[in-house]
């Protein structure tokens, strides 16, 4: 049972990583002059949208948290709206934090905001898919021994890796190498993306490695 679930997780994560790679490559066939560095804003949009769609689809298909009860349609709608509001708020929050960390306040607002959207896609959206608009569950997942399934462990790892990647992505900005990817926010968004992808790969491996130690509390 556990092995099979890890396999499903691995497949899903690989699919996600593949999608990220595709967003960097595929649009060049449809859009003239598309490149990750050159038309960074477009890529940010494409990547966020694709990863978001894929996550939602995967969530609908795999249903990692089967809820026994069948909810009414109105409840679902309200839940969905709540999710949208949460997502938007997380974008705003990320934007604020990024600016407080030293991003330009007035110039490049679009870039900063899209970067915040990307980060939200990598972190908040997954939380929303897996846990729903339930802040208290989020709090639980992001603490020691808080994960209750391999999906939640995977969520922990990928989110942290994304944030860490974005943090490390800020490091090359002051260097005087004059590379196109040193421009704000390219290095940070690339860092976040690589971090996310690394997290996607690491998570199943880590869970597989530590499957003896991982004993999830039953609900």
């Amino acid at each position, binding site marked *: 049972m556990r092995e099979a679930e890890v396999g499903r997780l691995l497949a899903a994560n690989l699919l996600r990583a593949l999608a990220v790679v595709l967003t960097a490559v595929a649009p060049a066939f449809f859009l003239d002059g598309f490149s990750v560095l050159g038309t960074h804003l477009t890529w940010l949009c494409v990547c966020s949208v694709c990863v978001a769609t894929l996550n939602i689809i995967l969530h609908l298909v795999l249903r990692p948290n089967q809820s026994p009860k069948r909810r009414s349609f109105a409840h679902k709608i309200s839940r969905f709206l709540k999710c949208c509001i949460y997502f938007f708020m997380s974008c705003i929050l990320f934007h604020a934090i990024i600016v*407080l960390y*030293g991003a330009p306040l007035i110039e490049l607002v679009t870039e900063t905001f899209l970067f915040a959207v990307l980060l939200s896609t990598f972190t908040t959206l997954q939380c929303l898919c897996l846990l729903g608009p*339930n802040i208290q569950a989020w709090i*639980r997942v992001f*603490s020691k021994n808080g994960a209750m399934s391999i999906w939640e462990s995977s969520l922990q790892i990928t989110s942290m890796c994304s944030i860490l990647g974005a943090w490390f992505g800020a490091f090359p900005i002051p*260097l005087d190498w004059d590379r196109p990817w040193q421009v704000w926010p390219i290095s940070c968004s690339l860092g976040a993306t690589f971090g996310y992808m690394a997290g996607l790969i690491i998570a199943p491996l880590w869970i597989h490695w530590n499957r003896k130690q991982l004993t999830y509390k039953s609900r």
Partner: protein
Amino acid sequence: MQRWPVVLFLAWVCLLFFAGIGLFMSGFLLTRIELASSSSCSDPVVPPLWERQSLPPGSCWAPQRFSKAVLIIIDALHFEFAHFDPAKTSPLPYENKLGVLHQLATSQPRHARLYRFRADPPTATMQRIKGLTTGSLPTFIDVGSNFASYAIQEDNLLAQLVQNGRRVVFMGDDTWEGLFPKKFFRSYFFPSFNVKDLHTVDDGILQHLYPTVDSGEWDLLIAHFLGVDHCGHKHGPNHPEMAKKLTQMNEMLRSLVDHLGNDTLLLVAGDHGMTETGDHGGDSEKEVNAALFVYSRTPLFGSGPPEEPETVPQVNLVPTVALLLGVPIPYSNIGEVMAELFAGDSDAVSAALEQLSVYHINAKQVYRFLQSYSLVAQDLPAEQLQHLQELFSSAVEEHTQLLTQVHGTTVPPELKPRLGSLIGRFQHYLREARAVCTQSWARFHPLRMVGGCILIASSCLLCYMASELAASSQSLCCSCLLYPLFWGPVGAALLWLVHVFTQEGLDLLLVSSWAAAASQLGFFWHWWGRHLKRARLTGSQPPLASGGLRQRLRAWLGLAFPMGILFFRCGAMFSDSFVVAEARVAPFLLASLVMLLVGKLHWDGHLTVPEGPKQQLLGVSSYRREIWYLLCLVAMLLVCVRLSSFFHQCREEIPQCRPSVFLSPLASLRNTRAKNFFYLLCVALLAGLVYAVQSWLRHYGNLNSSDPLVLFVRWGFPLVVLCIACYWAVASSVDDSLGRLQELVQVAVVVFPRAVYGLASMGLLLLLCNPMTVFAKDTRELAGSIVTPYLGVPGSEVDFLHVIPQIYKRMQESQKSRLERGSCRATVAAYGLGSVYSAALVIALTLLGFLLMLLHSERLSFAFLLLFVEAFVLLHIQTCARGLARDAELFSVPWYAVISWLLAASQFFYSTGHQPIFPAIHWNAAFVGFHLDHSMNLLPAVLVGANTFASHILFAVGCPLLLLWPFVCEMSNSQRKKAKKESQEELQEVEEHMMEMRLRESPEEFSTALLRLGLKYLFVLGAQLLACVCAAMILRRHLMVWKVFAPKFLFESLGFVVSSICLLLGISLVMRVDCAVSTWFSQLRLR
């Protein structure tokens, strides 16, 4: 532990660091003093009368041989680039490209010659330009009259030419613009900063070169090409681009030669060479080996060229060009004339006479310089100077003897050999003189640098180990810490004995570093002995050891995250880009550290309420109430950090940067409305600060007594603010608007700052004399009847909550026997005893803050407000975090608190408008309260230093607050609890409010805690310093070493010195309060 050993031990650790810094500095930074004197035509160094008569018009000191000269400087023209070897079949990209030089030298051997041109380290372009024009050996710091600009103050070739009415035209590298402002008759500057740009400068020069040469409106034309150097930095010498660049230079020279007239001297010189990788700056063979090519249409040399090109030191160019053009040699020149250029095409004897006369002039000038230099500075060894003087006087004596036998230009044949030997003696003198100067000015001492590095590194290690040691044992550490102090003098004495026997001069720096090393060895030896003993003890109990190992592992993991941030901070010192961008790096790391702290607290589950059975069922957790408080604090901190970035100064390395508008003084504002607005805002801010401090003190009951200090806080603080406000008003007013009041203004500008200095020092003195801000109400005799001396006694409930009556068990016990029969309510109530330590520190910090704000421009007081707010928030965050993590060790300050405190200190170094470069120093701070003329140098140095290291001073003095704050905040926490409790329990609660008196309860632990805090602070500071020192040492060949790393190292080490002294002062202040509290208690007991 007693109090004195703590301060002594900390002072000793500081001295260890200072010795390390001193040792490193003596090996790395070579200093020289610039003389302000300059040569002139009428100086008495001119030759005797018989030759003076033959001086043609327009000549000084020696007859002019060329009326014009063209100096082509090709940056980084290595000798190999200029050398042409026709035998080579497959030349490298940089070989055999300057064919025109070879062609000229072979076809006209008496007109042209190629030399090896030895540059003196440091081989950075700016130092080389200085060397090529002053004829001296510039070091990194040329102690001159003016630090603020790079302009050359010393006498130099260009100044001499301009002084004698010649026209100097310049084109090329814009470094010259800063070095020689307003010296050029005409100039075409091109930006030199972008190393990646190979062509802008060169193409710009080529555009103007030939028209200028043809126009003839110049006497000296300098063209400084940068392409070769930039190509070296970008691609390295071994690259096809270099071949293209050198070919371009070849073409340029070929056509330039055709444009020259008969009376023109052409000099092609490289200012330095380059290494295999294309860098320069150090003293390796490849870097110092440049090329010099001399050419003229009239014959220059008496004979053909030697087989192997001669080697000429770079400084020799200056006297040669000066005398050839007929101007005096610059005053500070130590170069030797290139005599063969003075031979001309006359016969051998008259050529020798000519050479003798230029040597004589040159020697006299060098002698004069050495005389006046040794009067000013002592860095040239005395015995060598004596030896030089003997050489000189004997040569001059023979010269005068010889001249009596020479009549006109006819020389008796028997004198010819004497003529030759005399030239040789002058030459010998000049070379010896230059060697002496080189030895003391232009050489790194790698051994000293490594020694300094090791000393600093081991001091860091010592700090770390001592802080751990002090934690583990309290009784023994005293002996272990104080023994090493005796080892130091023993080591120093040993060295002294050795020196007495070997009869060598004793260097104070060396002795002190030996003493430091010896005492460190002593410490480590003692430590090792104790370690072995303990290992033997634990060895007998294996199970304990394994448990200890796991614990230690966990402790190490806990350390990893603050130390990781410190590691990144130190690593950033090794990259010039990161040093340049440090103003943004420090806040980034500070924000990361605090966010990580919150994240870690969350991860460990400290932020959530322990799960009850009901919550476990739901699988959710909820936050404690304090979390919102913590999150608000973090948000405030982040906002403060972000806002502080609006006060940054710019460095020239970031051309798109604009300096903050808040840096300029209000007087420079044109808009009167804005000026008034900002002025009022600044004054309101000052008043707000005073109000905040006073209300903080009132809150903790420290504002109740009638001691002079408290009275000063009540009335002196507003007075200080008033004085500052008046000073700002006067200083920012427009000069002409006041008209008749001009004289009054002149007085006011001086009087108000002095009043502030006076008031502030009075406040600090009062603080030292009696730092107790406690109001004691003794009810023992009165037994119940409450007398109200004045306001501030708990009348209402609010007052009761705010003013804490401190009841002392010890007191009670001692009084119990006496009071048993009396009323049990007879107690001593002391208001503000619980925060007596912090109150003293807060008062001191506020006073210092006022002083430092006065030294900055008006609008930087916003930055100071941010500083105070941020420090306050940081203290609260660490208190809150420790409370949440249920940190049992109240007496040990965690590493993250110390590191964040220091990160904030360096963040506000930048946010008070500073940068670690010399032009960014706020020099006008020296004139706050003083007129423009200072009789001595100490006072302005102190003022400018205080201005520059304002944040270091404030944070270091405030460092003990990190230890005290959790105790101070104890009340507010328990108050909150109390609100929920029943009223009966209230009295017992009150009794538990020990606050800072917990520290007094265990004086041993208090002293140890202060020692550990000091050591941790010194460790983090020392780690940053070590990174800077290592960066400067390892990267001493780096392109940016003199622009980025060396100034950074200087500022960092000065900052370290200031910080450590202020840390000692802060800790001593706490100790002083402790003493006062002790005496207060003993007096109370006596009463």
